[in-house]
């Protein structure tokens, strides 16, 4: 973090180290244990994706994580693709249910789980028995709209898939699943991704065919309106990762709304007949050597969260080919301190003032109110990160001092007296972002 310390202290980096780690794990990988030990210092959420299913070794890893004095939440993704996945998982439900940390087991499914009755039943039974054992469960479905993006009646076929999916999701909720999310299958991604010639992983999926952007865009708009329909019925479905091209669908790690932002890497308004193919010129703005010039995505790639693949390579996101470092060779903290950060800063001053015009003053705060914290504070020597769920805010040192005194005991009058009038805009901003509750 030397780089930061040279900066003016209140000017915070846009990209500090992440606090949500998503990680692929296999029982053989030797580097995992030491990686997890390093991760624990950083994370509030560790998501382990057991890409080859569960095994005693993996259970052991999870149990060690559970015993560690630090308290990140654990998310475990189990692939429901092997034969008889339910019986191979069932013996693990009991030991997993004894974990002390907040744990959620997420079953990774595909559209065939929605369409084939036997697979569907197996999946639902598994969700039910894991839930019954006291575990929080979730469902994550991988979609591959590009596989449909050719031939006739593409949209009709996609809608039929969504309908089947809707039923699966409703049944999963009934079986006890608390979270539902979608993500694109990797087969969908390479065709849309710029090709960075260097610094990319060697595992490139083969056979990238051209896909009509307009077809894809129409599928994605189907998807979004379907999700909004579900939302209006009280069924919350979100994206674990963004669907490139789905311009109103931010990458959001499961929980968040679909109301703002855009996905990374792509022109949000593609020309209707523009053909996508793989190549470095896809988006001239994207210079892989100059990360700071990338369009600012609304996702947390490489700052709020990052992804560690099965080989220990750290990437901003599972969908990204940009490699930040190799955990087998380097320490996590070195990887992140050598990472380029943008100059933008984000704290204290950027919240709406409580005194000026009505647009800027959505809240008329009575000075008798008391803010109650709903966040965690991750201390760093450059300042702090406020974490609430999957979201975070960077704070300067002054912000940290203020945030630390938010304990539900002091009222706003006190904050104003102690930190000045600006404190009120800060607190107001925290309220709007859901980091605090105000009480009398």
């Amino acid at each position, binding site marked *: 973090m030397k780089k930061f310390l040279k900066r003016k202290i209140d000017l915070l980096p846009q990209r500090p180290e992440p606090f949500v780690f998503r990680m692929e794990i296999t029982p053989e990988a030797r580097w995992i244990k030491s990686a997890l030990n390093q991760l624990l210092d950083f994370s509030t959420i560790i998501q382990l994706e057991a890409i080859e299913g569960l095994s005693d070794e993996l259970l052991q890893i999870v149990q060690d994580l559970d015993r560690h004095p630090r*308290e990140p*939440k654990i998310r475990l993704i189990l692939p429901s693709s092997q034969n008889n996945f339910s019986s191979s998982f*069932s013996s693990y*439900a*009991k030991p997993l*249910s*004894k*974990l*002390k*940390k*907040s*744990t*959620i087991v997420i079953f990774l499914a595909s559209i065939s789980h929605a369409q084939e009755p036997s697979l569907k039943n197996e999946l639902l039974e598994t969700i*039910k*028995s*894991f*839930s*019954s*054992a*006291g575990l*929080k469960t979730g469902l994550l479905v991988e979609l591959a709209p590009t596989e449909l993006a050719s031939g006739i009646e593409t949209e009709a076929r996609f809608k039929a898939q969504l309908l089947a999916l809707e039923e699966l999701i*409703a049944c999963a*909720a009934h079986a*006890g699943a*608390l979270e539902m999310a979608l993500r694109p299958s990797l087969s969908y991604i390479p065709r849309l991704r710029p090709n960075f010639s260097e610094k990319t992983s060697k595992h490139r999926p083969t056979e990238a065919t051209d896909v009509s952007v307009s077809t894809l865009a129409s599928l994605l708009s189907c998807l979004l309106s379907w999700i909004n329909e579900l*939302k*209006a*019925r*009280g*069924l*919350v*479905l*979100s994206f674990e990762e963004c669907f490139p091209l789905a311009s109103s669908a931010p990458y959001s790690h499961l*929980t*968040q*709304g*679909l*109301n703002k932002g855009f996905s990374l890497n792509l022109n949000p308004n593609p020309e209707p007949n523009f053909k996508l193919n793989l190549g470095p010129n896809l988006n001239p703005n994207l210079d892989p050597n100059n990360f700071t010039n990338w369009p600012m995505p609304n996702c947390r790639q490489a700052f709020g969260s990052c992804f560690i693949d099965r080989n220990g390579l750290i990437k901003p996101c599972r969908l990204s080919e940009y490699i930040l470092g190799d955990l087998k060779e380097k320490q996590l903290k070195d990887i992140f301190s050598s990472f380029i950060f943008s100059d933008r800063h984000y704290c204290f001053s950027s919240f709406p003032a409580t005194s000026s015009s*009505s647009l800027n003053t*959505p*809240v*008329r*705060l*009575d000075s*008798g*109110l008391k803010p109650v914290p*709903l966040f965690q504070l991750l201390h760093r020597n450059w300042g702090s990160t406020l974490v*609430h*769920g*999957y*979201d975070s805010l960077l704070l300067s040192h002054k912000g940290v001092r203020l945030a630390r005194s938010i304990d539900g005991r002091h009222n706003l009058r006190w904050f104003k007296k102690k930190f000045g009038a600006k404190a009120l805009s800060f607190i*107001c901003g925290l*309220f*709007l*972002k*859901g980091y605090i*509750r*105000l*009480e*009398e």
Partner: protein
Amino acid sequence: MGKFAPDLTFEKFRENLAPDDLLFSVPDLYFSFRPGRVLIVEPESASWIVLPQADFSFLTSTGLINPGANERTFRKLADLNLIAPPSSPSPADYDNFLRLLYRLFIRNMLTINGYSYYQPSSLWQVQKYPHYFNLHLTESCNLACRYCRVDHNSPDPMMMSVETCKKIIRRVLEEIPGQKCIIGFHGGEPLLNIEVVVEGSRYAREVAASAGKELSLSLQTNGLLLGRYSQLLKELRVDVGVSIDGPEEIHNRMRIFRSGRGSFQEVMAGIEAARKAGLNPGFLAVIHEPEDYLTVARFMVENLQAKSFRLNYSCYEGRAKKVLSFDLQRAADFAYHWLQLIDFAREEFMRTGTWLSIDDLNLFVAHLVSKQRPHMCYRSPCGAGNSILGFGHDGKIYPCEELVGKEEFCLGHIDDPTSLGRLLSESELLATLARNRYVDNVPACADCPWRHFHGAGCLNKSYEYFGDIAHRDPMCYFYRTVFEELLWRLSENQEIKNLISYYKKYIRMEGEWL
């Protein structure tokens, strides 16, 4: 809009609302859906509402309810004025719209100008001083139930002496403040120590009278000795609870003599004798097979003519650990069959015109239709050490009857000179329990939508199953399921609120919660 009184009425709400008030959505709500309706739960204040689909869609379209979002969106009331929820007949029906806002507001599902509605904290408050004192008169028993929490094998009968009993009674009545006091005789089988029951009861009445306290005495028995002692218990004015697990073939599966023979006939004879003596015993059954819920409930009503009884599921404790299977499907199965008790109670009401009182169904309903907490058990921080104290046969003091005999929970001894009041207020152990069991400090319950409804459950159960007090309830899924289902049922059929039966005396039911 300015400040709100805790008991804000709709009329006052409407009066106070100004066109430029800002309505904010609240993040992190929990939603559940059924055809045509949506259930919303606000986890922080344990509030809930079921809305018709049309109202819900209207609210999401305005952004006042924003499923899945973690930021607040806001609308000026004036901008919404012209729109009324689609379910109301016309935009002129502005009142309906305001009422909808009111209902959301008092449930903390909407904030206005930054204000949340005041929520009484009685749901997580605990009492200052215990009022229920549970004495283990002996650890031995004349039965050998397969699931007993006491796995007692030693030849020592572990009897409480009269002297110890009197000391406990005197000290709790004199040293612990509070007007009301209940002394419960438990065990083992307390009637095996009849001398202490008799002496203890008489002494308790004397001391209570001189200390000016209201005293109730209770005793939980397996019923075998009721034939011999019912008359005596009647004279002592002791309330008697009998453990009977249901009809003969269910009861005899578990509640057996050392020889292995079932005890049903003897227990029924005991109940008969108790009734003859003029006692009105209460009944407790422990359910091991979820399918038995209805059979047992029917048995209680038809064979025992009981209007009020308690059905507990068996727990991972003592002998049960070896005998019963605690398989994965357990919580789901228990929840499914437990919920059928609701329909059973309704049918009984139609047949007889009175509502059954089934513990803990009544308690759960009471929690859901009010913001009060009439009973200190099962929700953490629970009654252990706050409203309850347990005493071992040897005079050792524990926070709760369920913890008696577990050394790590021992608070002290009745012979200690420190006053009981001080013992409680200065106890490190109680402070740790209060802190670690507070549901917001139980890591596994962190994101649970039901955390402030259920409060991580019973600390003893967590301790027995996980070996750790800061853990969730082992039957977590049971609670998640039954709370959600009860909310749906309450919204479909408000009659069900009558299931709270005798808790009615203790809580104020607010019409708005339904």
